[in-house]
Each structure stands twice: as C-alpha cells, then as structure tokens.
C-alpha cells in the first residue's frame, strides 16, 4: 500500500544529523532543541511529543518524536555510540 492510500506521508530515513540538546530535569530529561540536516537545513524544534527508549539488545536508543510546527520528525539518539539520526519525517497532512 502506498503512502497516498495510507493517507500518511511518513518518509523513513536514516540520516546522521547534528543536534543541539539540553540535558536538564523534566519530562524528557534530554531536550533536542535544534538540528541540522546533511543538506545544511536547520530545524528548530517547537515541541517534543514523546521520548521513549528502545533496547536493541543491551544497547539503549532513545527515540524522540518532535515537531517544528510544519512537520513531525523522529530523532534517534544512540546512548552507546552517542550519535543522532533522523529516521522519519512527515509533513502536515
């Protein structure tokens, strides 16, 4: 089924990104506030929807579902390798 039939414009990616994040007590403890894509485009995060951990084995990867108000994004922070990746982008429907 295509995205169009699914009425869902998610694009799945695997793009290494540069992230500015604040680590402080709060709902998510770690707050990505801004990230730069490989194209050079910078995105300012306006809301973190949810942060949840996943464990591929004993490794810990934190998933951040965020938005800049125009599109939703998923950022993945690998706590072992200390890398950030952009894995999903979905424009406003």
């Amino acid at each position: 089924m295509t995205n169009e039939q699914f009425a869902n414009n998610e694009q799945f990616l695997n793009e290494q990104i540069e992230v500015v994040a604040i680590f402080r007590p709060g709902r998510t403890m770690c707050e990505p506030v801004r990230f730069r894509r490989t194209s050079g485009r910078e995105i300012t995060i306006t809301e973190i929807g949810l942060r949840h951990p996943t464990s591929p084995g004993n490794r810990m990867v934190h998933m951040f579902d965020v938005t800049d108000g125009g599109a939703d994004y998923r950022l993945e922070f690998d706590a072992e390798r200390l890398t950030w990746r952009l894995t999903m982008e979905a424009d406003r429907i």
Partner: protein
Amino acid sequence: MNQGYNLADPRVMHIDLNSCFATVEQQARPLLRGKPVAIVNRRTDHTMIITCSYEAKAMGVKLGMRLKDAKKLCPELIGLESDPPKYKYVYHQLMRIMQDYSAHVRMKSIDEGVIDFSESTQLLQSRSMADIGHEIKQRLWDEIGVAMNCNVGIATNRFLAKTAAGLHKPNGLDVITHENLREIYDGLDLEDLTGIASHNRARLESVGILTPLDFLDADEATLRKVVFKSVNGTYWHQRLRGWEVDKRDFPIKSAGRQFVLDGYKMPRAEVLKRLHHLCEETGAKVRSQGLVARGVSVHARSYSDEGRGWGGKYWHARSMSPTPFFSNQTIYEIAKKLFDDAPVFVKEIGVSCYELSEPDDSQLSLFGDQLAQERAVTGIIDTVNTRYGKRVIHSADTLSTNTGMKEKIPFGSTRYMD
C-alpha cells in the same frame, strides 16, 4: 454469602487509557492531534484497524474494520502502523505512576490497570479517591504528555470500577457506590457489563432478564441454577452488588502467538517457515518465564468461500508429550507434525505451548546428556539474543521471515512484556 449491597467506601480504582495506541501516536506527533487516526498492524489493503482516535470514532470508524472500508466512511482517515515500543513505554509509565500510590496494582492489559486502596496506608485512605483520580490524570499530562487522557472509575470492587471507567469516555471520572448503583444500571444495556456478550445475554434473556436492573434484582438461586448453571451465578450475584469476587491471579496456562499470513494462498513451504518463526517466539516466551511445556497446540484458519473474506474454517490440533520440553526445535518438530493435517490454503496460523510448569530436575532422565546439551545450547542462544537484540540468532529456515513478522502488541495479558 452477602445478599445486600456492599456499603463500604469505594477503594478500588480502575484506570483506562483512552483509545490508547491512537492517543499515544497523537501525543508523539503533535500534527496528528484533532485528526482521525487509525492504527493498523501492517500496510496492506485488507489490514484491520486495531484502534482509532475519538475523531475517527465520531466519523463511524470502528475497531476491526478494514482500513480500506473505513476510508470510505472517513476519507481523511490517517492510517499508521503500530509502534509497540512506544506503547510499552507508556504502559510502563502508567504502571510507575499507579505504583506510587499502592503496592496493590494489577495491570489488566497494555492500557488499563487497577489500584486496590483497601490495604493502603491511613494517610492515603484519608484522601478522597476522586482527588487521587484527578491527581493521576494530571500526572499523566505532566509526565507523559498533554494528549494523554484516561478514564478513572472508582467503586467497591473491580467489576464496578471498570464499569465506572466506561461511563464517560473520553477523560471521565466516575464513582459508583451503593447509593447510585441502581441509577447507573438503569442507564446501561446488558452488554455494557464486562463479561456479558451475546452468549450470556441470550442466557439471561431466556429467563426474562432483559436489563442490568433485572439482572441485579434476580435472586442468587436463579442465576446459579438456571442461568449460569454453576458457581458463576453466585459470583455474578455478588459482583453486581459491589462485592469483590475478581481479586484473583491466574497462573500462566499457555504462551503462544498467531499470525495472519502476508500472502494469498501461500505455498506450504512458506507457511512452515512462518510457523517455525512463531515456534521460536513461543519458545522464547516460555523460557523467559523460567518454564517448560508439555503440550503444543497449532491452529489455522482457511479461506472463506468468497476467498478474501474474514470468515473461513477454523482448524486446530494439539499434542501432549510425556516429558517436558523447552527448545524451539522441539516445539517446531511437534508443531510441524501436527500441521500435516492442516487445510491446504490457510490465511492465519498460530501456535501455543500449554501445560506450562517449573522445570523438575529431580527425576533422572534416560536422555540426561542430550537434555543437558539442549539446555546449554538454548541457554546460550537466549543469552546472545538478550544481549544483542531479539532474533540475532535464529534458525536459517526463518531468515526470510524477520521483516514481515515483527512483534506486535498483544491484547490481554501483559505478563510477557519486557
């Protein structure tokens, strides 16, 4: 046996997340809030909706509907594939919040749980239950997110607390006591009561019990001897009056998984690969609880006459072994043999292990060495899979099934959830 209503203060709280998976998705993706969203398990034409948002429900979309059909009712419906780790996280957060109030917390499924305050401290007992309910709602918003709503039901037993939680969806909070019990039942239908579906309804109607109030007024002997023909009649008589009869933990009796095949009229060799995959997951579930099994049961559903409908014949077979087993290979060998008699073309398959028990090493086995070897190999595979991720080591036979058969969220018991 208690004949009258339970006059005690309500101390059982049922918490139910509203349209859980859809709400979690709307929490995670702010741009989906206020939009009709349906969650499905896979991206296919005939995929069924496992849950949907209140906006979708308002347009007539229902659980179990095919996404394709639902989109005719609601063209702007957004289909999303389920994301189990996200839901597991919210489940654990909900459980953590609930456990802050009492040690007597029982999760009934991934989106609902019960707190029993009857054995809580004096300090908690002195607080209003409704206040605690509102506080839990506030904590869900603060600690998970602003889109997370829940229903809270408070009563003297689990049954009435669940009934109360269903009265004002979404985001309700209701208390049922002996004082408003009749009024609440008056506004309900028989099938609104948890545990009463079409079969039990027919039983009740056969003796003239047409409404929950008729049910409440029925005498115990009629329910026990005529309607349910068992002690269940007595339990219902007590349950309806607010007495606790459901505070029981049932031992794990079986473990398994089922799968709707990802191809039409799939060749048997491909079906067996998927059966093998299910056997590996079933074996891991059994061993994760430190148990061994003695029985394997397999089932399949064949196509209905129309070919693509959801009807079709149900087939199943089971086998008991004289000795307990635990390895994936043994489970698959038994399941495969049983599957010889399955219909040629099937659209759904399932496997489960039953007669689960703690391993008993006190009895010497004639095949002791072989058993020890099997246990060592299985143990190492489980250790590697725990360290590096599920299914890092699996049989070569299931190499091609890894992507299409990823784990989904089970309904019902959450005891296998890590």
